[in-house]
């Protein structure tokens, strides 16, 4: 009995902060909706009805959640090890674009063709992330800034590629996009006449895989230890450069997978700006923050955020409130999640230790 109580207490302790933050975020949303002169209850009513409570919209929410979940995991892989990778977007673009081009030009069809394309995509994503690892190892270049800069580079280069060498000749003058990938490499649709496809299964597998790697494998342990306490990990014989290379490459490969799920499961081609305009990577980052980098939490928070966006689109259609309302609600949530994180999780683990925490007796006085 007391064990059950203890478990419940633990669950409450873990969930308390994200739930409070979510409530505050939704309240911030109320303020902004009032500001636009609309009725918040009605707006939220439409928002949740057209994202979770109607089967058609629920499948849309889950389809949209797929890349967000995987991006969240890609973020968590790197952040947990203390490598602040905010370049998931760039890794996603480069990997998914390469996979798309490969799928179009590859003569091998069917399942084998699909698997080969995915291998190509994940390799490119991993290599793209590894650029930053190498720059950091050789030149101590900041991971934060480099990963972010490479987002823009990937986005512009993919934009160039889909506008010139790989442009769909059949498309009209305005749309910059590649040709469609062959039918035989599409992900199977799980529910007829909807967008609900194999991608969501892959997303769940990625979550399970991340749990397995971080709890059961040496690499996961080393990676986690490096994040918790780099000095301890070093003392324990962990080769930091090797961990960084592996962690960043894995993060990039998973990010590429997120983009591929969107293309092979839903859009079937690369459209210029498709990932940046939907801001999958940033939403995934926010999901990871709300969930405190925990994979199961990421699964649920990503679905929740995806619902906010799908609902946000519905509001934009019916009451002309801009879709960015969902961004505002989401970022308000993460803003408040973090305030408490500063007190609890991060202070304890020291991933982001406050700047003035230095060894005792640092002053020479």
């Amino acid at each position, binding site marked *: 009995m007391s064990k059950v109580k203890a478990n419940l207490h633990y669950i409450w302790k873990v969930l308390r902060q994200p739930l409070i933050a979510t409530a505050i975020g939704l309240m911030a949303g109320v303020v902004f909706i009032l500001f636009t002169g609309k009725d918040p209850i009605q707006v939220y009513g439409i928002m949740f009805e057209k994202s979770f409570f109607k089967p058609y919209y629920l499948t849309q929410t889950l389809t949209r959640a797929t890349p967000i979940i995987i991006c969240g995991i890609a973020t968590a892989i790197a952040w947990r090890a203390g490598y602040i990778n905010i370049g998931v977007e760039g890794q996603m673009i480069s990997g998914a674009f390469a996979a798309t081009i490969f799928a179009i030009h590859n003569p091998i069809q069917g399942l084998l063709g699909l698997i080969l394309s995915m291998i190509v995509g994940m390799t490119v994503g991993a290599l793209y992330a590894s650029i930053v690892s190498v720059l950091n190892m050789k030149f101590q270049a*900041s991971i*934060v800034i480099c990963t972010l800069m490479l987002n823009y580079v990937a986005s512009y280069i993919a934009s160039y590629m889909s506008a010139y060498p790989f442009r769909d000749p059949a498309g009209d003058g305005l749309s910059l996009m590649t040709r469609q990938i062959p039918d035989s490499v599409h992900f199977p649709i799980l529910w007829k006449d909807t967008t609900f496809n194999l991608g969501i299964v892959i997303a769940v597998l990625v979550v399970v895989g991340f749990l397995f790697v971080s709890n059961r494998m040496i690499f996961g342990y080393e990676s986690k230890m490096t994040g918790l306490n780099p000095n301890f990990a070093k003392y324990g014989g962990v080769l930091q450069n090797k961990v960084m290379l592996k962690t960043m490459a894995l993060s990039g490969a998973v990010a590429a997978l997120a983009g591929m799920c969107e293309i092979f499961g839903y859009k079937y081609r690369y459209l210029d700006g498709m990932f940046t305009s939907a801001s999958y990577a940033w939403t995934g980052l926010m999901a990871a923050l709300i969930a405190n980098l925990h994979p199961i939490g990421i699964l649920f928070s990503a679905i929740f955020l995806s619902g906010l966006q799908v609902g946000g689109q519905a509001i934009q259609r019916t009451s002309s409130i801009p879709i960015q309302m969902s961004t505002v609600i989401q970022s308000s949530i993460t*803003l408040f999640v973090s305030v408490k994180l500063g007190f609890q999780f991060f202070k304890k683990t020291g991933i982001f230790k406050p700047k003035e925490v230095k060894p005792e007796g640092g002053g020479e006085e």
Partner: protein
Amino acid sequence: MNTNLLAAIINSTIRSTTPVLLAALGSAICSQVGVFNIALEGQILFGSFVAIIANHYTANVYIAVLAGVLAGALVAAFVSVLQVKYKAADMVIGTSLNLLVSGLTSILLFTLLGVKGSYSSPDLVMLPKINLPIIKDVPFLGRMLENLTFIDYAAYLIAVLIFIYLYKTISGFHVQSVGQNIKAANSLGIKSLRIQMWTVIASGALCGLGGAVLSMGQVILFTENMSAGRGFIAMASASVGMNHPLFVMISSLFFGFCQAIGVAMQNTIPSQLTLATPYIGTVIALAIFGRRSASK
């Protein structure tokens, strides 16, 4: 090389440098007091936005600049309270605020002005262009310094002033000591927390000024996410310049030059590739100078 083209590129470099330089100075002073501020992007963007809004309502460009400065400082005040005072994780606060500002500006743009995406109007007043009396008639120099705004000049003046304050005054040494050893600083009776908080707010004001020149200097418009990573380029610039105001001035000019080169090549190379130039330049600069500025 055609001297006229060279002068035009230098002119364009100076113009593109200003927002980056101002934000980089903001980043540098934060690093000097040991605060890792990554909300610069949001501070710039909010500055640009509020400047345009104020311009729309008052049609006075100076009030607009002031409003932009205050708006940047407001975003920084959040960083100051949540991250510095309450010790929330820097990356989380920074990314959340950047995204919050990006969403908020789009919504406010729609609710206040009823437009989506971007706003420009012939009624908006641009920053006045300064053409120095004698210099404007000197062939090369005149073209080089053509049509700059007062903020373009002010940015360098601010850099020098920050340098004098930090490195030549006692109060400036106190500020530096907070970043070097906060415990020692505290033991001397320096109010470290207060200094850190106000420094962050000052960085917001600098970014806001940069934002204002971004939306009212070379062009007069606001577009969604118009800061386009300049906050992060500024961080790179501050880190390459080792957080020293005068070195930051030089490194920022390099980033401005990358942008200017991108614009100059636009007619010969597809714009998608030229647009990537400043970002590639940033990564290369970090790789070359990163070793010397490995502080963060």
